């Protein structure tokens, strides 16, 4: 008689079972990287045909990448790392399946970074009809950035994009969003924010605007940007302050694309665009502002400016006496602090006694801009600032909050803005340069 462990046949049986399952399964979800076409950015536009849309995909071409690293020096030497394809279809899933007829690999959206909507689509029909697929399909993540082209179609953005430094479009997108965060000229929005704020009561959302600068668009020839002669550039600049209005920035060379300003979205449709300056005030109100350099007019010398690096020291305090009859009053207080970065007029402002001069300008300008922006939004009966959040925290029941009818009441509200601003540090020099002759 052989003495054997009784667990042996069981162990063999179980492991056989496991092995059989493993072998039978094949490998349904296993996809080799070289059998996938990664879509890095996606554009959606209104088509020339009714009820159809142009979907533009930027597909990464890994074969053209040098695996040993290092970037080519000029555009000719380096083959494109990505290609742009446009399909016209009724919906995004249809476009994806139609695109498969011409692309050798299966499309993969797990590395998708940004969805860009065209201006026309955003104005007319709105974005919401295209959001559902993005939310539902597990390939799309809720952390995709959303942009709107300020003037024109998303497709143009794809065609004209020429990043200054980055070879990868994904790095370009990440870098740009980082710049947005640091300058405050827009607010980076991801799909999750868009959906959550659209679904929330009493708030409208915003989307950053990307625009094509016509001066540089003119400079782009044969896939290269050649800065125009100075004479011509001097002719083409306009008399504007960059960021104050909706117009483009006076600029030559570099990437034709620039991200500045926000689109206000109500029920999925773009109802208004706000400029870079307004966007900063918006960010202050929405409390998405962290940091930025602001330039103000000098209080004493005309046509000269001083610059302040402005931080938000505390979240804004907003008091709304919503329980009384209309019009409600909204008292907003910003808490800001800043460092002096430039005194163009060379006046001696740096001392505790003269600080109030500069601080006064800052508080006045920001308060004015805030009231201006709020009244602009009041005319449109929209509240992208989500001021209702300050009411929300004083309520007990959700039903009460839903019944608030905030947007109408906001439109009639009286707004007071106070800015609590302190200058903190002067930088590396105390007083500006002294010219002995003028002493």
């Amino acid at each position, binding site marked *: 008689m052989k003495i054997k462990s009784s667990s042996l046949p069981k162990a063999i049986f179980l492991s056989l079972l496991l092995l059989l399952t493993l072998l039978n399964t094949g490998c349904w979800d296993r996809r080799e990287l070289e059998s996938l076409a990664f879509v890095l950015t996606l554009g959606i536009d209104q088509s020339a045909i009714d009820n159809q849309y142009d979907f533009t995909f930027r597909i990464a071409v890994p074969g053209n990448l040098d695996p040993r690293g290092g970037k080519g020096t000029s555009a000719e030497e380096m083959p494109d790392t990505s290609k742009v394809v446009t399909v016209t279809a009724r919906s995004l899933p249809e476009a994806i399946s139609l695109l498969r007829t011409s692309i050798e690999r299966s499309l993969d959206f797990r590395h998708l970074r940004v969805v860009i909507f065209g201006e026309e689509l955003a104005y007319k029909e709105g974005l919401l009809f295209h959001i559902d697929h993005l939310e539902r399909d597990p390939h799309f993540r809720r*952390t995709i950035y959303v942009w709107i082209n300020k003037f024109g179609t998303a497709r143009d953005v794809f065609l004209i994009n020429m990043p200054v430094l980055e070879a990868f479009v994904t790095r370009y997108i990440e870098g740009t969003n980082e710049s947005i965060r640091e300058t405050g000229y827009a607010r980076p929005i991801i799909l999750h924010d868009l959906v959550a704020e659209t679904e929330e009561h009493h708030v409208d959302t915003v989307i950053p605007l990307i625009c094509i600068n016509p001066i540089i668009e003119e400079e782009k020839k044969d896939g290269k940007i050649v800065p125009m002669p100075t004479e011509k550039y001097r002719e083409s600049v306009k008399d504007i302050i960059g960021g104050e209005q909706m117009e483009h920035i006076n600029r030559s060379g570099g990437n034709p694309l620039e991200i500045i300003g926000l689109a206000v979205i109500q029920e999925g449709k773009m109802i208004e665009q706000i400029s870079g300056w307004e966007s900063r005030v918006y960010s202050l109100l929405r409390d998405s502002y962290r940091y930025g350099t602001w330039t103000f007019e000098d209080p004493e010398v005309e046509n000269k400016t001083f610059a302040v690096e402005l931080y938000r020291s505390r979240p804004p305090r907003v008091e709304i006496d919503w329980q009384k009859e209309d019009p409600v009053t909204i008292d907003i207080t910003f808490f800001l602090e800043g460092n002096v970065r430039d005194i163009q007029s060379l006046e001696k402002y740096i001392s505790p006694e003269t600080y109030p001069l500069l601080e006064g300008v800052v508080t006045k300008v920001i308060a004015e801009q805030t009231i201006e922006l709020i009244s602009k939004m009041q005319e449109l009966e929209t509240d992208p600032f989500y001021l209702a959040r300050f009411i929300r925290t004083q309520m007990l029941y959700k039903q009460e909050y839903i019944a608030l009818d905030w947007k109408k009441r906001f439109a009639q509200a009286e707004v007071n803005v106070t800015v609590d601003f302190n200058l903190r540090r002067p930088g590396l020099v105390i007083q500006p340069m002294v010219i002995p002759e003028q002493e």
Partner: protein
Amino acid sequence: MKIRKKDGVIGSFEAFCLCNYLIYTKMFLAMPRHLIEEAGPIAWAVPILVLIFSLLFFYILTNLLQRFEDLSFLEIIGELWGSSMQWIIGVLFAFLFLVITAYQLRIIGEFLLSTLLPQTPLSAVLFIMVATFVYLAYFGIENLARLAGLLFPWLLVAFVVTFLLAVGRGEFYNFSPWLGYGEWRLFVSTVNHIGIYKEILLLAFIAPLFRKHQTLRRTGFTSLIFVAFFFFFAMAIYIYVFPVHTGSELGFPLFQLTRLVYYGAFLQRIDPLFMFVWASISIVGMATGLYVSALSLAQGAKASDYRPFLFPLAVILLAIAFYHESSMEAVKNYRLFPAYIAIPFFGIPILAWLWALLFHRQRRQRQ
């Protein structure tokens, strides 16, 4: 099956971990969504309210077990109401645990399919999971509990860290209005989810394995409080990040939470890592469910071993898991029936306790 101390002694830490796994599995399913849908921004309070009831129930349960030391729950039933009742209730609990596990299995499988393995057939995923359950349960509660104990600290850390990373997207005002849809709806939601911690009954089935009754009591209370805290923690972060309307429409809620983690270029898209957490907890939890089901059957029938029941039960488990045509149907039923299932889970022990209190005065001596 008569469990005696010589069959193995279960440590309090290991039993604590096992209870956590068994109870927490349901949180990875659709539960956060249902809670936020029913109670609104105050949904975090539901696990705490249920905890108060569950602590009371567990106190009664331990009181019952203390009266009959060295006996498991079903043996106490046999002592009180005769062996035919022991068999009936054993079969009933075996069935209930099996059904719960089967539904969890189906929904977990559906989630897996809809997120990470979209092309894989459901049957393959379910088969491999059930094979794992049988393997894990086959070697008994002692090894299962030790496995739970071994992985617990790591899973805990991973769980907490992934959730805290998701906090960056949250807004404090999402908790307001403070009472949500009102006290009544909170109460209704609490009643609907009264059975969140019902699986704590596991301890009653393996009661003789504890060295002392005091250990069982302490293990039960600590695991209830601990697991309630984590229900609260996950729910609070879920509400914090997702506004009510968005939160009540997400499939696979906690997974979506981790998909939002986005800190610059390096710390993002960590959701497959989170799968380590939920898949481990669910698989160990469901394997425990299968084990308890087999154990209940064995104890009810006074069989000498639970192991022969495992394989047939696993087949039935798969059959129940495949019963529903669509995933939404399964989710809907899983949402409805725990409230009813809670009745026998709480009712029978309380009834037994009352019976023992009124008609079974003489305390059993420790042998």
